[in-house]
């Protein structure tokens, strides 16, 4: 008999046991909210952005071990990345960073990718809004 049997890789279990960046960010620059209770996974991802770089990320997740571990991993991976770089993080990359996921758990990595995309889009939407507000202000300033 082998010594260790587990549904998950050691890496997944490590993130599950000690999830990084749990919590919410006050006044976040972007929030992603994905999943639904019927499927049993809900993820909330908060990001703080400075100069197009993600400087902080936190999550809250209702879900299985894989959901928690991928949430933790995605927050680790995005920190320090530019918005463009963040959008390139695929679910496969997340699963690989965790040394793999069981086939029936791959949807958790998909969910984490979606949470990230959704948070970034939220940021872009907001910043566009801010931008256009700023533009408007500028415009109105000009017109003044």
């Amino acid at each position, binding site marked *: 008999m082998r010594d260790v049997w587990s549904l998950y890789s050691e890496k997944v279990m490590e993130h599950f046991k000690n999830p990084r960046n749990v919590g919410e960010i006050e006044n976040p620059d972007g929030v992603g909210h994905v999943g639904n*209770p*019927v499927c*049993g996974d*809900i993820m909330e991802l908060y990001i703080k952005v400075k100069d197009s770089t993600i400087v902080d990320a936190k999550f*809250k*997740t*209702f879900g*299985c*071990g894989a959901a928690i571990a991928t949430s933790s991993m995605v927050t680790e991976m995005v920190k320090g990345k530019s918005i463009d770089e963040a959008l390139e993080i695929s679910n496969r990359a997340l699963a690989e960073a965790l040394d793999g996921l069981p086939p029936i758990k791959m949807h958790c990595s998909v969910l984490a990718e979606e949470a990230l995309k959704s948070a970034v889009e939220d940021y872009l939407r907001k910043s566009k809004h801010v931008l256009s507000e700023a533009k408007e202000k500028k415009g109105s300033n000009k017109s003044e």
Partner: protein
Amino acid sequence: MRRIYLDHAATTPTQPEVVKAMLPYFTNAFGNPSSIHSYGQEAKGAIEEARDKVAALIGAPSEEIVFTSGGTEADNFALKGVAFANEGKGNHIITTSIEHHAVIETCKFLERRGFRVTYLPVDAYGLVAPDDVRKAITDKTILISVMHASNEVGTIEPITEIGKIAGEASVYFHTDAVQTVGHIPVNVDDLGVDLLSLSAHKLYGPKGVGVLYIRKGTWLVPFMHGGDQERRRRAGTDNVPAIVGFGKAAELAQKDLSKEAERLTSLRDELIKGLLERIDHIHLNGHPTIRLPNNVNVSVDFVEGESMLLNLDLEGICASTGSACSSSSLEPSHVLLALGLSPEQAHGSLRFTLGRENTEEGIECVLEVLPRVVAKLRAMSPLLKSHR
């Protein structure tokens, strides 16, 4: 690390005495019971002795005991056997919405092959109403299948009452007693059943062997076709060691059934009480009293079952959940949904099923560990916030 196993509804350890009884039949008395020579006949004698013991446990004549490869096969055999044999008479089957997959999936297979199946609802405790059974019977009804007790929430169904209704209507009546035999008294005549499924590995016997009890005169076609074994009712070389083990397990179960049931009931109630006291937003699933002596099923709000399970496992506590995450489908337990739980609550379910090795100490350990686990997971739950 010491482990506390609280998943006896999934499977039980085979008792050492059972293994000891099996051992000679692997290497020495290894014959095929169908063989005429001495090796064959000693194996044959052994399975007949085992048959007597299993028969005694459910109050049945030995000739009405047919060995199968487990509870799943017994359920498949009962349902497909009756359906295929009686389609001349009718094509309607009545069952419930909380049956084990071995019954539900078999019903779905039969539906695809032209049978009509009524899945009766249950109340908030998981109880089937005998009157619903009565009303569902039509002149096309050939079989009623209602489980004796739920493997998930532990609720014990009113089988005797349903048996009377089935008897009056002259409809075959099957019960899946996989979770009750060896744990609470089961008598096929008292229950009024024609067919009853059991499985050895749920009562400290080996995996890979079960029984379908078939009352004399019940008309069903074989499920496993082939040789002449089991009086031509179930083909396939008899699994001699496993059958012998089942016999031994049945004998042992019968010996201290009521004492053990009492002991477990009190542990069960202690665990339920403790959990409700120490964790808020927690609910007991299933009936508070009409339930298996060893079953505790709770839903913990705002947290998901598998993540609780994994955290418990890290502390040596082995339990189970009705969360989707533990299966290959994405839907949570059909049983919990049938009881009226919301998907979140179903995903947040935990099942502890006690057994012989468990003591007060194990219960205390759960009561100490689970609140911590729940607190940790709630701290990362997005549901709790929205609840506040």
